[in-house]
């Protein structure tokens, strides 16, 4: 499963897709993120790791637009990003999953993944009301892309099942499918392997690697468990108490004294 064994080639051209510059995020008096900077290269798998409460999720929410930092800048595709609503950021090509699975529980897996196409569908309310010609064709074209995602994630058998009735592992896969359907330029994964057993974790790692190598999608993921992430990531940022304490290749990070200290101080690893 290790990435090295598949001899990945031509992935990171070292062109930053996103640059995080001196971000500070405070909630009232509490500082969640303290002056953090890092970048994400085009086509790489970038992990943000750290113990629980290190500020990883807050970081993801800043990138995704749920939180607006008090200080610092976010640069996306070479441009400084203005304060935006989350839905506008989705339209820029950033898709995400959630740690506690945020699916549309009443809808089928297929419909859930279809919503991922929202940013790509252009036809307005009225042409849909009539639902003819180009609007209908657009629906078919998007369905085709969604079916490819379904095939990719091997969830054909649950296409019509309401996601609320699915087991946890499959819900996680559907959620990943919804993000993939957006054909994102940057895919954010919030603890994609949380609550999974070893086999499910390996499956999920396989999907993440395949997304990255097959579609060239840039992936930024958060995990508090170092194990699997170190195998699949190109570069890792380590956070602890809202600060960045390490940044580099998995090997560099693994041997970094500050990182070792932070992780040894935490009991759940």
């Amino acid at each position, binding site marked *: 499963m290790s990435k090295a064994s598949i*001899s*990945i080639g031509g992935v990171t051209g070292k062109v930053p897709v996103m640059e995080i510059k001196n971000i500070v995020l405070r909630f009232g008096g509490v500082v969640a993120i303290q002056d953090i900077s890092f970048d994400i290269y085009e086509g790489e798998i970038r992990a943000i790791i750290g113990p629980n409460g290190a500020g990883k999720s807050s970081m993801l929410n800043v990138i995704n637009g749920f939180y607006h930092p008090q200080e610092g800048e976010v640069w996306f595709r070479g441009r400084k990003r203005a304060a935006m609503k989350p839905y506008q950021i989705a339209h820029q090509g950033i898709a995400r999953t959630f740690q506690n699975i945020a699916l549309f529980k009443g809808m089928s897996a297929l419909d859930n993944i279809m919503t991922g196409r929202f940013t790509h569908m252009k036809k307005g309310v009225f042409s849909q009301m009539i639902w003819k010609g180009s609007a209908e064709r657009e629906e078919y074209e998007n369905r085709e892309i969604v*079916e*490819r995602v379904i095939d990719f994630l091997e969830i054909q058998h649950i*296409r019509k099942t309401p996601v609320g009735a699915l087991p946890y592992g499959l819900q996680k896969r559907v959620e990943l499918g919804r993000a993939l359907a957006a054909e994102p330029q940057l895919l954010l994964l919030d603890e994609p392997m949380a609550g999974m057993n070893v086999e499910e974790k390996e499956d999920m790692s396989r999907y993440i690697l*395949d997304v990255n190598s097959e579609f060239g999608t840039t992936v930024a993921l958060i995990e508090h468990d170092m194990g699997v992430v170190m195998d699949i990531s190109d570069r890792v940022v380590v956070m602890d108490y809202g600060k960045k304490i390490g940044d580099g290749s998995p090997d560099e990070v693994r041997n970094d004294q500050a990182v070792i200290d932070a992780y040894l101080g935490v009991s759940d690893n």
Partner: protein
Amino acid sequence: MANVMETLPALLEKNSKIYGNKPAFREKAFGIWQTWSWKQVHEEVDRLSLGFLELGIKEGDHVSIIGRNRPQLYWSILAAQNVGAIPTPMYQDAVAQEMVFPLSHCSAKFAVVEDQEQVDKLIEISDQIPDLKGIAYLDARGLRNYDHKNLHSLKELAALNSKEEVLRTELIKRQKNQNLDTKCVLLYTSGTTGRSKGVVLCNKNVLESGKAGIEFDNINQDFSLICYLPMAWVGDFAFTMGLGLQSGMCLCCPESAETLHEDLREIGPSYFFGPPRFFEALLTSVNLKIDDAGSVKKFLYRYFMGVAKKNGEKILEKKSVGLINRVMYLLGDIFIYGPLKNRMGLSKTKVGYTAGEAIGPEIFRFYRSLGINLKQLYGQTEACVFVTCQPDGEVYSETVGVPVPGVELKVSDSGEVFYRSPGAFLEYFKDIANTNKTKDKTGWVATGDAGFIEEETGHLRIIDRAKDVGKMKQGSLFAPKYVENKLKFYPNILEAVLFGAGKEYCVALINIDLTAVGNWAEKNNISYASYQELAGNSEVYNMISDHIREVNESLAADKSLSGCQIKRFLVLHKELDPDDGEITRTRKVRRNLVSEKYSDLILALYKGAKEVFTETEVTYEDGRKGKISATVKIQDIQETVYQNEVA
């Protein structure tokens, strides 16, 4: 082209001329059924053949086919035959090490595989199979960054290439060399008893046995078949290549193993084969659904199933039934049977077969009473399946029918069944000794099964494996499989293994069915965390011992088999698993392996212990090994004494 009817690829060419644009293959992909006509399939196979030639595949080379039922893999079989190579389909769910034997035994030169998973396995064992020169894959996913020196995409192989004319001449030359006696497939048996054997079938075997099957059930071009059985199993080969190509029916491949039931419903195949387990599982799921249904539905279901039980089979067999009963059955068909058959995907089934193991009489009758023409057949890899089939209107749950056209039957003095047929295999690959032992010079093949021909019906009835039928210490007959099958007819019992040859009494190892027993436990407020915990529950033990008592009673009624009654049993702490080699991938128990592996348990059963501690090695899906330990309870059963004997 060789003689039109002498090879499978020739048959394909004929079909493309006769049937042209009629559907040959369907596969559900991206949620939609894709269709290929006979003409398209012929073109695909033709191009693939040229690709195989370009790769340097020689006549007589073995080409391994590994993957789920996919049209392109079937085409690869035909293309391999077309260039004079011998296709060797293999079980795609085997772990890498299990593949070493068949691949090295036939020195496969080339493999056509479905996806990355199979490629990884072949790379893992590449040191042990030095003869393998190249791999072609169907799904490119995840393979982009692999070394492509000996790795080819099937799509590129089938693409037009510049050397077409040279290759075409070579192809025609090779086709001319082929005839009825050309080897057309090598199939490895699942190896119920020891190491698996490679059965070589020639064109004649496949064509003649297929023809017999077609004649027996009047199969024609309008039929459809769903291809879901393992490609390595002779049944799949005989139904798709033997029956399919000769009848010109449409072969449909499901989207994935998990979507089988949905795809089945959408296709509604007219020819369907399922092992008894398939029908058992389907019935269990129906029963579960009914349990959850509303009271009106439940009532209607119970009522009309009663009607069906009384008259369904008679109506299916076109026997006389009173008008009122007919009307009631018709109503039942509208409200219950029709929708039920539709849900199961069997509403258009004209011919349904089951074989391989005995099927529970209740289960068998359930399907027939709904109006599904489910029948039994008896077949073997060595016979290219068809030995006997039940004719319409002569269907009994204990027999396997009459010989199909062209097959002769005889039973030896020792009770073993022999047959002679045009479908009888050429040889066991690289195993003359076993070939001669199984097939004599006059063409009679030993089945290895003990049985007899019923006088009143003329039907063949199979009791057990000939070598498994043994003697107890006191000299009475010991037929383990017969008893095990009786036990397995209880939905709660998944597997049973009986021991007792040379002993004074019989003992049994039981595997409970986690779905059925789990459901029962839920209703009775018994909580459990695992199979192991449920298996050790004393109420489960009581339930199983009730079942065994009933089986003992029915055995006691049969004089020759009354010695096979079970005196002591235990419920195994783990499920018998193909990954551990305890059962084959077609779910047949490997008796010797089980008796060795659980020798401590069997010893305890005979020693009279009340419980026994044991430690067992298990293999996980990814090939890693681990150990589980448990203290297993043992329970005694009162023997039923045959009343007349006492008197």
